């Protein structure tokens, strides 16, 4: 574009002039180059005039910098009317001398060119308007109209160059709009030749019947500007740019833990539940109970007096409430008490950016502690995987920055595109729970697995769960061999119970045997003892008899000896 590329030094880094336009100052690292012209190029209806006027209106409102709008297209009345509907009261700004609008009408059919001329008249008009309000900012919309109104291109180009130099000398931060041109040019008339500091390109595309507006910083001298295309919306309060990379990850964190509404699931999360600002992704095939799982957490939050917002992208609100009631989760009362808000919409009704901004706006307004998005997979229908990921990145960052617990569900059914999305998204989230079916023995049973949960020692178990009339019931941890669920698990457990009973009986039997043996032994002991005692008694009796008889014999012989007067010694112990 320009012949020489200057070597940048500190002083070459341009001072910024904040636009106040949501997101634009982030992607331009502070705004437009102050005191210099910026080209805003794009096709008709892509938002050039809006961006330019918003730059002036916000400049006047927020930064106290009056502006001049030189319109080559719409007259003052039309501008007033058009911007009234966008929430800018231009009439008021004009009345307060913060804005001057100069409508320059170039009607070729009225003009005859004869000989040499210059555009001093335009310069004088602009100069007068600038002086009238003490302008710091100016917009020329669309300067290319001059080429349509006048025939001498050479003069126009020379004067354009002079005009921009004139504005620069006056220190005005300028936006020059230009009609988009083909074949590698930003504008039809090559205005970019005269505006070398900053070029912003606007685009309005329709993909799959969905219109998306985009903004790109095509050039920004001396700046490491984002080269991405940023989607933007024209909202009721002007342009809202979505700088996906601009939020960053520097959000605050909390150590507060909150319940999932399912005590046994809390147990799986370290026994404490999830972090209060976690983003939780729950993926699973159809019918695995994703919505039910989310509703438990929403219910628990409301029960604790925390507010929740439920974005439903698949089912209508009455349908959700009815279905949840059938599994014992009644969210109706929370809704009635103003703790819970539902927003149901079809993802394909509007573009991703619109959804994103709607969600952000609702969250900013209601300030919930919990946000449920059910399901996010439907967005794949709206954008491609990269766009969906960008949108969700921004959304997750946004919600995290607000300390919101985010619960997202995502449907998986083996489709490669969806899987890719899930893979992409799962790296963004803090907690990733997978629900699935386990098929065995002619039935399917639900099971749950925590794939990851940052910052905690979560369970690694695949747990079976049932959806009962009282909600989700996680089954006991199965400690046996093999991973079994459902009837197979029940059968296995029955078999194990039978085996246990059999073992028990065995033990009993053996115990009885031991007892019997012991009893028998004891009986024998007793009989032997009795026998022994009897024998002993008999023997003792015999001994006693013998002794008695011996005593009597001695006594008899003593008596005889006494009778016979025998010597004691001689017959002392003789028998």
């Amino acid at each position, binding site marked *: 574009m320009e012949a020489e590329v200057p070597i940048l030094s500190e002083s070459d880094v341009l001072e910024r002039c904040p636009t106040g336009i949501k997101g634009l100052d982030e992607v331009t690292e502070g705004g437009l180059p102050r005191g210099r012209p910026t080209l805003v190029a794009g096709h008709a209806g892509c938002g050039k005039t809006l961006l330019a006027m918003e730059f002036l209106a916000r400049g006047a409102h927020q930064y106290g910098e009056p502006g001049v709008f030189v319109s080559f297209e719409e007259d003052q009345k039309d501008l007033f009317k058009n911007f009234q509907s966008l929430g800018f009261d231009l009439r008021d700004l004009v009345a307060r001398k913060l804005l001057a609008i100069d409508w320059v009408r170039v009607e070729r059919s009225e003009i005859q060119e004869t*000989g*040499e001329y210059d555009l001093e*008249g335009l310069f004088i008009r602009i100069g007068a308007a600038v002086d009238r309000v003490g302008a710091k900012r100016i917009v020329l919309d669309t300067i290319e109209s001059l080429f349509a*109104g006048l025939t001498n291109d050479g003069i126009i180009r020379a004067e354009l160059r002079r005009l921009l130099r004139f504005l620069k000398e006056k220190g005005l931060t300028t936006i020059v709009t230009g009609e988009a041109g083909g074949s590698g040019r930003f504008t039809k008339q090559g205005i970019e030749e005269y505006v070398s500091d900053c070029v912003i390109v606007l685009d309005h595309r329709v993909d799959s019947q969905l219109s998306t507006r985009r903004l790109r910083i095509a050039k920004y001298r001396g700046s490491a500007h984002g080269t991405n295309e940023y989607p933007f919306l024209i909202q009721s309060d002007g342009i809202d740019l979505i700088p996906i990379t601009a939020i960053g990850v520097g959000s605050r964190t909390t150590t507060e833990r909150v319940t999932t509404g399912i005590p046994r699931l809390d147990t799986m999360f370290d026994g404490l539940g999830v972090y209060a600002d976690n983003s939780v992704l729950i993926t699973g095939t159809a019918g695995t109970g994703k919505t039910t799982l989310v509703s438990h957490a929403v219910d628990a939050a409301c029960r604790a007096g925390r507010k929740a917002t439920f974005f439903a992208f698949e089912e209508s609100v009455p349908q959700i409430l009815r279905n949840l009631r059938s599994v014992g989760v009644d969210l109706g009362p929370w809704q009635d008490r103003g703790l819970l808000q539902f927003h149901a919409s079809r993802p394909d009704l509007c573009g991703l950016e619109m959804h994103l901004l709607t969600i952000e706006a609702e969250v900013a307004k209601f300030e919930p502690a919990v946000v449920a998005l059910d399901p996010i997979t439907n967005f794949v229908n709206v954008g491609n995987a990269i766009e969906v990921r960008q949108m969700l990145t921004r959304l997750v960052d946004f919600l995290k920055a607000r300390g919101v617990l985010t619960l997202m569900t995502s449907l998986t059914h083996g489709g490669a595109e969806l899987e890719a999305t899930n893979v992409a998204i799962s790296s963004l989230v803090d907690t990733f729970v997978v629900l699935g079916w386990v098929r065995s023995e002619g039935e399917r049973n639900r099971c749950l697995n925590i794939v990851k949960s940052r910052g905690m020692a979560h369970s690694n178990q695949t747990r079976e769960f049932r959806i009962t009339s009282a909600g989700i019931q996680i089954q006991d941890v199965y400690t046996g061999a093999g991973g079994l669920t459902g009837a197979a698990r029940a059968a296995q457990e029955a078999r194990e119970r039978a085996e246990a009973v059999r073992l028990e009986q065995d033990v009993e039997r053996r115990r009885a045997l031991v007892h019997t043996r012991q009893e028998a032994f004891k009986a024998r002991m007793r009989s032997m003892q009795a026998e022994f005692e009897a024998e002993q008694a008999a023997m003792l009796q015999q001994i006693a008899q013998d002794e008695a008889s011996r005593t009597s014999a001695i006594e008899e012989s003593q008596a005889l000896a006494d009778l016979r007067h025998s010597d004691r010694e001689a017959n002392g112990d003789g028998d």
Partner: protein
Amino acid sequence: MTDVDAGTAGDAGDVWQLTLYVAGRTPRSVAALDNLKRICAEHLAGRYRVEVVDLVNQPDRAQGDEVLAIPTLVRRLPPPLRKIIGDLSDTEKVLVGLQLRPGGG
């Protein structure tokens, strides 16, 4: 400066009202005024009035007649409004522009 350079008064209904916008006394504006006087004398003798507006002194006048280019000659009367820009050096084109001669518009 509102330099009213009246020609010879003619029939009131037939008087051409012309305004020449200039910005300072540049050679080009001097040339334009000279050319205008000559053409008027030749083709509108006695039935024209010329007002010269110097935008340097009256910048607010620029908006009224949608003046961009300097010099600009505006034919207010007779209607419709016509504008001729440039130093008026091409007499033929000036005459066509003022619709004093057939040949386009």
